[in-house]
């Protein structure tokens, strides 16, 4: 996360000094490698890490096209082509699973994107350092609670007839609410708890971007007669927009990647029609039923969609706002 900010700020036209290298003719790759070898050396461990742990295991993808046979190992099974993909697409559960995954992840994506920006803008308006620090700490603390604990909290609060929140709702005249067992409420429960947990933490990056605003800009705007909302509209928002853009593009890469643990833990027989998503289905097929090839195929399909979404989002962002990851 922090890496992204530092790489964006130099591109930002209004802030920071213009890079000096831009004035000289563009150096070749080799020249630049020679001149900045220290930077390359710092990058090396990350490159090695990605190569070993992300690219290395990719050879296992062929499992999606082979019939896995324990005696012949990962790469030895018979080649079956797209049989496992066809099997997934023709499964009666395919559309419900896709719909659940998209609904849950879009809600989380959009809400999880907007909420930290709003929170950062609000916190930025607080003048007292102590209050600001306090609010920040309080809002980002939940980030460190384990998923299992969060889900247990949700379950306890929403237990029919005895949970705290269920009782609170009863005060407002909503009796016999069973949010835990409701298919309609599931996406909402998911994204609300997700946003609540991570909003503070995710707003830190925007606060960092906001702190780089030149104070002279505020003064100039105030002299021109700008009110508080206008300051936010014309100074704060443009400052964090590139950061927000990059984060959105990166998040698009997870558009079908609803986190496994939380959904799995929140599942119960009543909300199952709304809570079965690709990752939980893959787990049930692959680990519990030993259908390794089939679940690899589903996983690969999931990856392919995420990849396309990432590239598309990046291209759009490049055209529209000139910010892009690559």
């Amino acid at each position, binding site marked *: 996360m922090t890496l992204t900010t530092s790489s964006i700020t130099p591109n930002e036209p209004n802030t920071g000094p213009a890079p000096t290298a831009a004035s000289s003719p563009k150096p070749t790759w080799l020249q630049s490698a020679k001149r900045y070898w220290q930077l390359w050396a710092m990058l090396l461990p990350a490159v090695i890490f990605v190569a070993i742990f992300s690219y290395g295991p990719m050879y296992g993808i062929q499992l999606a096209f082979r019939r896995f046979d324990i005696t012949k190992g990962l790469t030895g099974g018979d080649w079956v082509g797209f049989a496992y993909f066809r099997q997934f697409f023709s499964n009666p559960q395919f559309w419900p699973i896709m719909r659940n995954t998209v609904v849950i992840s879009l809600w989380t994506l959009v809400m999880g994107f907007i909420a930290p920006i709003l929170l950062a803008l609000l916190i930025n308006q607080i003048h007292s350092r102590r209050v600001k620090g306090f609010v920040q700490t309080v809002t980002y603390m939940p980030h460190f609670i384990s998923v299992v604990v969060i889900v247990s909290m949700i379950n306890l609060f929403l237990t029919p007839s005895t949970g705290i929140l269920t009782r609170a709702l009863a005060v407002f005249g909503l009796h016999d609410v069973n949010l835990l*067992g409701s298919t309609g409420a599931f996406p909402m429960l998911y994204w609300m708890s997700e946003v609540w947990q991570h909003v503070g933490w995710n707003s830190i990056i925007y606060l960092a971007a906001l702190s780089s605003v030149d104070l002279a800009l505020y003064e100039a705007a105030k002299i021109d007669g700008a009110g508080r909302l206008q300051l936010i509209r014309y100074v704060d928002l443009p400052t964090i927009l590139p950061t927000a853009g990059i984060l959105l593009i990166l998040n698009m890469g997870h558009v079908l990647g609803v986190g496994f643990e939380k959904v799995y833990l929140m599942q*119960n*027989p009543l909300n199952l029609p709304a809570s079965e998503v690709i990752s939980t289905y893959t787990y049930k097929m692959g680990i519990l039923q030993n259908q390794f090839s089939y679940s690899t195929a589903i996983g690969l399909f999931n990856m392919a969609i995420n990849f396309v979404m990432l590239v598309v989002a990046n291209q759009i962002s490049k055209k529209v706002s000139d910010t892009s990851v690559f």
Partner: protein
Amino acid sequence: MGTRHTTPIIAAICALPLVLSGCGAGQDANTDANGKPILNVTVTKHSLTKPLKDMNWPKALEKACDCTVKWSEVSSDWDTKKQAILASKKVPDVAISAFGDNDMATYGSLFLDLSQELDSMPNVKAMFQTDPKAKAVAETTDGKIYSLPADLQDLPQPKSNRRMYVNKQWLDKLGLKVPTTWDELYDVLEAFKTQDPNGNGKADEIPMDFAPIGTSGLGDGTPVHLLGSTGLPLTGTVYTQGIFVEDGKVKNYYEDTRYKQLIEFLNRLWKAGLISDKAFTQDYSQFQSVARGNGDEATVGFTWGSTIEDRFGAQLKSQYVSIDQLEAEAGQSAKKVWYLKEDAQRYLPGKLSISAKVANKEAALKFADAFYDPDVSIQARFGDMGTDVEKIGDKQYKVLPPSDSSKDSSTWAWTESLKENAPCWLQGKIEPSEEYKLRLEEDAPLADSYANQDPIKDQWPLEIKMNTADLNSISLNNSTILNTAVSNFGKWVTKGGVDAEWDSYVQTLKQANIEQNTEIYQKYYDAWLAKQ
């Protein structure tokens, strides 16, 4: 100076592999310091079970095989670890209660075929000769034996592991009779809800509660047991997939109209608020603790469980009785049944397997055989001679009550020995513990219902094994079938609508190849029947 410092470091590095492989210099990894063979034994056990080194009886095993046993004891997360072990093909020399039939179907080649080694295992051979069913349970389709079962031959068994309980004290207080039909049950539950039978002035009674459904099929302790009211016979372990055998025909109850009838009844109960509103969302520990009530004030009126003491605790156990299966309708023609699990309780498959690559095969076979010695068997199952078991005579034993009175008998049994994880052959005359006898007594009211179920034509035989291809098709189909079934079950019970949606639901199940599953089961059943 430099060389003096490096020498010990080099020595240490050289010694590292020796330390890691766990043996002294110059020794074979398969024998210990005295030249005795080493066996690496993995045993899965209950988290309450004390370490094996604190038990006396395992010493008899070491004596029998004349070897050193390195125990590795696993009591959590075995399913995840197991997959990694199997995938890496490095199974322990001997594994106890670790690998099941489904593992053997896929990974059988990793294990020693024990059918060829019976001559070196006299106890096991005797067991297979005396009780051919034990052999049938252990054998694969092509006659190989990759794992040995536990055979509780002479331990008196209840015919099922779940029974139906009702609070008798509440019934008496309200002047009600034990229900015998679904309609009577409805009235009783309604009285429980409205007439404050526990007398604390609060309407906190939970008329009916059942075990968490889980997301993969209806299991023990759920209302699935009421299917027997309609005459639908369930057996042992396959019923969670919906599979049952009725008059020689394999069927799936998830598409059976009698299942629909049950859902309609449950929906009626739910609408009247007679089922715990947490039934679908609580976890197992909540489900257990709520039935224990507050002090001597009971909260649950009607439920299912394995024993009264386990379900309601020592304080409340006197309030409850086990009851006979209900009838769906008064005077119905279908004969009520209760599900049979006798064989599945008597023969526990997959209790002991030996690696195909075991270095000390002879020792491993002796070790395995020693488990099936009568004296070792009884101790492996119940605990050490003297503290937990008393030997009365030749092959005559008495299981003793807990010597630590602060522990309840069930906790005690799990602490003292491997219990259900033990490979054993219980033979002779065994007098079970008092707690165990209660289980048999609780089973008594169900006698008529048991008698209505034909053990051949209405029961899925435990000893049937399937090949990998069939198992794969079944489990692949099941993922969709069970998912559809479970989520609809919850929806229909809580919101109704089973009547309108039933046809499209059955259509979805057909699309998920539910027929293919029943056909596979039928194929194996017919082959089995032909051999009877």
